[in-house]
């Protein structure tokens, strides 16, 4: 039985509990639920918001491609990825990944893999909105994110 991932790109917030419920409701075979939620930070008060730009035509497809790789690689019973776009204030959610499986290792690893690949391959870009009202800069990609993603290559 092939698992169909849930992928959503949206401006509005998401509800972690409701999303977990969607994957686990009525199931008796799930032994592990791993969730990752990425939040917007204010960088020690420096930022009032982040602007998340995305490539509408590609973001959904690319995350679906990453999800399919995760499903092929680990014995998952469900997988959800939700990525927000638009202006997001510190403390608000940006991204959600939920991986569910019979056993914890598959769920942990798949969730981690999803996040590493989302960061380096999903077409999203963050722009800072500084608290001092100055012109914000685009966030630079971190080489650590590339090396995190590279560790999944065999």
């Amino acid at each position, binding site marked *: 039985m092939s698992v169909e991932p849930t992928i959503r790109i949206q401006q509005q917030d998401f509800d972690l509990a409701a999303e977990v419920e969607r994957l686990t409701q009525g199931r008796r075979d799930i032994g592990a639920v791993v969730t990752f939620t990425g939040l917007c930070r204010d960088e020690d008060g420096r930022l009032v918001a982040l602007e998340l730009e995305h490539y509408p035509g590609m973001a959904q497809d690319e995350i679906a491609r990453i999800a399919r790789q995760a499903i092929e690689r680990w014995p998952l019973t469900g997988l959800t990825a939700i990525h927000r776009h638009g202006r997001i204030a510190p403390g608000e959610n940006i*991204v959600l990944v939920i991986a569910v499986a019979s056993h914890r290792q598959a769920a942990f690893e798949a969730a981690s893999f999803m*996040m590493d690949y989302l960061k380096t391959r999903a077409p999203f870009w963050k722009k800072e909105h500084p608290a001092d009202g100055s012109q914000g800069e685009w966030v630079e990609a971190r080489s650590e994110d590339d090396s995190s993603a590279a560790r999944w290559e065999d």
Partner: protein
Amino acid sequence: MKLVYFSWIREKLGMAEEDVTPPEHVGTVGELLDWLGSRSEAFEKVLEHDKVIRVAVDRVHIDDHATPIDGAQEIALFPPMTGG
């Protein structure tokens, strides 16, 4: 074909997309970038960062600038991604 731009590339070029018809000799992603650079000063400036510029052909990442663009409908140029 349609070209689409994101993040600081969009800002530096002052546009989010444009329709272009490259000349016959432009057959690969690399040749397309060279041709675009020759068209405008703004593009030439963007291409000074060509080591970091990422390209998607019809909404799929490409890693090799030798990739053919024959028949491509939409080519996107963007910096390394910073989502998640």
